[in-house]
């Protein structure tokens, strides 16, 4: 018996000494108030949950920097695959991470609608955010509360390989007809105009969002809810154009996924890539010497109307039920500091939502005009209920190529989901 008691006593003593040291080192007023409930000297653990796999390494850097500056707080980043679903399942268990980084999507809309996140509308932090993005969040949720702070935004259109454009002697298209002419030219010379990654159904959404938002506008979905319009009489042009794009893809467009596409496009297997700027870091990783450019998706023949699709890519928010509100706030405040925002947007090729920071990468020149003039619009699929799974409906349509059946199905699924509410 004695033999076992001795080591236990020793380790207990050692622990009490250690914890005494801990409380001495963290002895300023702010820490004492914030860690009130804890026994003195315990580090406050904050879970930072975010949904962008591409941004994991960048956030790791920022988290490390924060942890170093704040010895009493330990932030851990959680970035599971299929993060939005994981977040919803955790919400069902009432186990919401302290700090959440998520896009302004339907998931954000439903979760904030359930009152799970803090309200930032009277928070001074909100004043540093560009008003347009704050408005975007309010439009999305339809509530006067501001349940998240936009951190970065993205832009979606067309990414192109500058060297291949020069070689083929074509210029950047600004209208739909020019766009198809350029694509045809590549096809005629035996090259792929696009590298399509339709095995991953979500990648159908990038061209779909551009076409739908530019041609019909996102008010369409509000009118659809009111019942004044239908997909069948409004979406014909969108469906036709979506289908047209598949004629210029590589062989086996349904057999390749997003990751295959990033690598193949980086290796010059196609001249254009229908993706948003979030794909650029992955493309550059696969081929650091590639020269990339971007241009707005030319959905119509009215060049001035071809908006860049831009949404809040990551917004930061704090769980209402967190036990460490002060520390969580401190971390969010840290991320929103201009130097940290610019580190993030430079690595992620994103656009800042915070005032006073700019994206100066020459790759993005093609989007700059739209950003300065505000020729931007939000993603269409943020307004479509996620239970409809519009991406899989698109994927099936592009295989079966039946426009009428597709439009009918969109209407039918929309009504079915509305009826089940």
């Amino acid at each position, binding site marked *: 018996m004695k033999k076992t008691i001795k080591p236990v006593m020793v380790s207990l003593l050692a622990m009490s000494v250690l914890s005494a040291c801990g409380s001495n080192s963290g002895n300023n007023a702010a820490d004492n108030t914030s860690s009130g409930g804890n026994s003195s000297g315990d580090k406050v653990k904050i879970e930072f949950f975010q949904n962008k796999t591409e941004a994991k390494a960048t956030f790791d850097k920022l988290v490390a920097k924060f942890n170093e500056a704040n010895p009493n707080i330990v932030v851990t980043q959680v970035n599971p695959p299929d993060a*939005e*679903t994981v977040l*919803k*399942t955790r*919400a*069902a268990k009432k186990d919401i991470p302290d700090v959440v980084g998520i896009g302004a999507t339907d998931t954000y809309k*439903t*979760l904030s*609608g*359930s*009152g*799970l996140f803090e309200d930032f509308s009277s928070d001074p932090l909100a004043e540093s955010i560009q008003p347009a993005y704050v408005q975007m969040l309010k439009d999305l949720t339809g509530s006067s509360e501001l349940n998240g702070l936009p951190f970065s935004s993205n832009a979606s259109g067309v990414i192109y390989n500058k060297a291949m454009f020069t070689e083929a002697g074509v210029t950047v298209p600004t209208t739909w007809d020019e766009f198809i002419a350029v694509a045809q030219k590549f096809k005629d010379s035996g090259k792929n105009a696009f590298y399509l990654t*339709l*095995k*991953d*159904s979500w990648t159908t959404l990038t061209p779909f969002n551009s076409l739908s938002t530019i041609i019909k506008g996102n008010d369409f979905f509000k009118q659809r809810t009111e019942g004044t319009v239908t997909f069948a009489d409004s979406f014909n042009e969108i469906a036709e154009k979506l289908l047209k794009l598949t004629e210029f893809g590589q*062989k*086996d*467009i*349904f*057999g*390749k*996924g997003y990751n*295959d596409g990033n690598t193949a496009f980086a290796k010059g297997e196609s001249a254009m890539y229908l993706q948003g700027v979030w794909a650029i870091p992955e493309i550059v990783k696969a081929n650091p010497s590639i020269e990339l450019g971007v241009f707005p998706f030319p959905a119509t023949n009215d060049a001035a109307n071809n908006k860049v699709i831009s949404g809040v890519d990551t917004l930061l928010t704090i769980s209402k039920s967190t036990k460490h509100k002060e520390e969580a706030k401190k971390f969010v405040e840290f991320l929103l500091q201009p130097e940290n925002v610019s580190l993030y947007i430079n690595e992620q090729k994103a656009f800042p939502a915070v005032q006073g920071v700019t994206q100066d990468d020459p790759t993005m020149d093609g989007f700059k005009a739209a950003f300065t003039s505000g020729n931007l619009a939000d993603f269409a699929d943020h307004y479509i*209920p*996620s*239970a*409809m*799974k519009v991406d*899989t*409906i698109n*994927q*099936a*349509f592009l*295989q*079966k190529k039946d426009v009428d059946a597709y439009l009918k199905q969109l209407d039918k699924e929309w009504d*079915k*989901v509305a*009826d*089940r*509410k």
Partner: protein
Amino acid sequence: MAKRRVAFYLMTIPALLLFFAFHTFPALQGIYYSFTNWDGFSDSFDYVGFKNFINIFQDENVLNSYVFTFKYAILTTILINIISLLIALGLNAKIKAKNFFRGVYFLPNILSVLIVGFIFNYLFANVFPIWGEKLGSEFLSQNILGNSDWAWIGIVIVAVWQGIAYNTILYLAGLQTIPQDLYEASNLDGASRWREFWSITFPMLASFFTINMVLAMKGGLMVFDQIVALTGGGPGRSTQSIAHLIYTGGFQGGEFAYQSANAVIYFIVIVVISALQLKFLQKREMDL
């Protein structure tokens, strides 16, 4: 006597409590939610009666997932049982390095379904099409998982490849239970190999055959991980299994209650199928 009974209760009651807490209670909860309109995270919800069940029967996505799941489950059950029985017969024969081969054939069972799925996903996208191209076949040079008519066969291939390992072991165990003197007797009578299999081996394996059929069918009906790793239910909804639909619709789609109703119906279906299978196959055992 009383003392012994106490010991039995001590063993049974904790197990019963655990089973109730982690199995029965959630199942009852699921049945309760299936009569509400809860989305999975809101604070409040309403009682909606049988509305979810009525909507299930009008939803062709549900029907579509039932069709896929059943054709998948039936085909994998048949293939797994035929192939694993053949492999078990081979491994039970007098061959060299018998234990080595047994280890090799059991290997796929140790790997996680997801890892196997992701490996095959890569092979289907990048390796098999190159082989197909060399064979000069237009069909084989495409990723089978990207074809809405054939993607389910791709999933069957992966599931069978992995599924045979476990069933082979069960058949091997069964083969060891057959007394050798039966074969000696049949040898004396001059029975052919074929006759020996149908008249001795297969009937003696009857109970193992039953359990393997039920297990493989149950595994097939529950298919989920393979779908996640290989197709995500696509292209379109052509490879969406019932379990996958319940999960994605319930959590991604925010229709927790609606998919709970789907799960309740599915639970009843599985119970009925397993009961029928056992009744039918065990009757076959009796006849011997």
